């Protein structure tokens, strides 16, 4: 089918809107010094911390998100759509608002944070744990949405058949449902990880900014932009490259959930 000609101009403009900034970033990047820049103490610390916290957040999102997705996909109860809206809220909420909300919840004077602090002395903000918490907060909905779509697209008669053959609900979930939605599990986890890797607003608001402790890649880029432009560009290239690899690898799985 030929596309109507009227579609071309806005389509090309849309592509340019996204493409030109990315290309401009690459043009400005000091390629010959890339190795040196990425080997600096600040860069190495930020890369290491980001790897650790984003993987931990993806793991946490998996453990908490898969059960949530399964319940949302297969149960019918009043308020389910409200619950789903709530869980996807961090996808659209400005991250800095999320960070402030986390501070009021899990900060040292927060609703949950204060009793925890008084009982154990544990302080979440300004620690890598705080970074993981902020990352999980923003990444969780990506996993839940993807996995829920995968489970909902699955014919529930498979699970019913398993039940007639004597499988309990847990066995059916573990042996039938989960294996059949493996691609959605994979896509959801990778998306959650990529979102965690790029997290900025909630992290700086909730966890602060200290090299080696809470300064992840995006924070290091933000600080370096005003200090050492070349270092900021080098770190940005890493983020762009990782994101592109993830998105190309996932292709259209995100949208179909299978």
């Amino acid at each position, binding site marked *: 089918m030929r596309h109507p000609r009227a579609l071309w101009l806005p389509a090309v403009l849309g592509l340019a809107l996204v493409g030109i900034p990315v290309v401009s970033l690459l043009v400005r990047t000091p390629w010959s010094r890339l190795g040196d820049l990425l080997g600096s103490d600040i860069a190495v610390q930020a890369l290491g911390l980001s790897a650790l916290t984003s993987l931990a957040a993806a793991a946490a999102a998996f453990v908490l998100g898969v059960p949530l997705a399964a319940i949302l996909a297969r149960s019918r109860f009043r308020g389910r759509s409200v619950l789903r809206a709530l869980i996807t809220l961090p996808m659209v909420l400005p991250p800095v608002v999320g960070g402030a909300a986390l501070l*009021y919840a899990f*900060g*040292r004077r927060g609703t949950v944070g204060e009793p925890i602090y008084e009982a154990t002395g544990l302080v979440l903000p300004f620690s890598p744990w705080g970074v993981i918490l902020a990352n999980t907060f923003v990444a969780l909905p990506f996993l839940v949405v993807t996995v829920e779509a995968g489970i909902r697209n699955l014919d529930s008669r498979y699970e019913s058949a398993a039940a007639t053959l004597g499988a309990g609900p847990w066995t059916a979930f573990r042996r039938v449902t989960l294996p059949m939605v493996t691609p959605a599990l994979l896509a959801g986890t990778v998306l959650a990880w990529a979102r965690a890797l790029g997290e900025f607003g909630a992290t700086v608001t909730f966890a*602060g*900014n*200290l090299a080696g402790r809470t300064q992840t890649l995006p924070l290091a880029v933000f*600080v370096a932009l*005003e200090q050492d432009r070349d270092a900021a560009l080098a770190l940005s290239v890493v983020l762009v490259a990782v994101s592109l690899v993830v998105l190309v690898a996932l292709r259209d799985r995100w949208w179909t959930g299978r």
Partner: protein
Amino acid sequence: MKRAAILMLVMTACAGQSDPVIRVSAAASLTGVFTQMASEYTTTTGIEVDLNFAGSSALREQILEGAPVDVYASADESNMQRVVDAGAATTAQVFATNSLVIAVPAGNPGNVTGLADLERPDLLVGVCADGVPCGDLARALLEAAGVQASVDTNEPDVRALVTKIETGELDAGLVYRTDLGDSLESIAVPAHPPTRYMLASLTDAGGDFVAWVRSERGSEILRAAGFGAP
């Protein structure tokens, strides 16, 4: 007919640049005073003022990358110098000074008594990031006093730092004395050379607002907020 109306609308929107609006980029620590000055300026002249507050270094980068700005107010000399060196402004003038204090949450839960307490590892301590004037000033102050602060966070601007102290998440932080507000308590630090706030007009349109900041009334607002005279 309808098309012509839409075209007219688009053209007026594009021509909107002729509506007088002065775009002011000011250091985060000027948030209170510049908001007041802009509002009085608009009341007097009828000219709208768009205010953009952030760390002086972030604003400097925006200007050097070509952001349309009529007036730049930095909280130190080095950020302004780079804007002048780049040819974005011809002259800049000192219009206020400011110095640091230790800010603690109401009730001083960390029992902070002086600069040396910032070395205590049991306290959560914040300063502004490198390159942000309040951060550079804080580092100079700590170094001059021989204090190795155990810093837990380098905040991107002084307002972000103040918020974290106000909410009690930090036990202490080095902020401008003008940023204390009502909810923070302050602890004095050793005398130190203050930071000098610089003001420059980057376009012809900005000159009038600069003159307003330097006027008798402008100085009064700055003084009332605790800023020092230039």
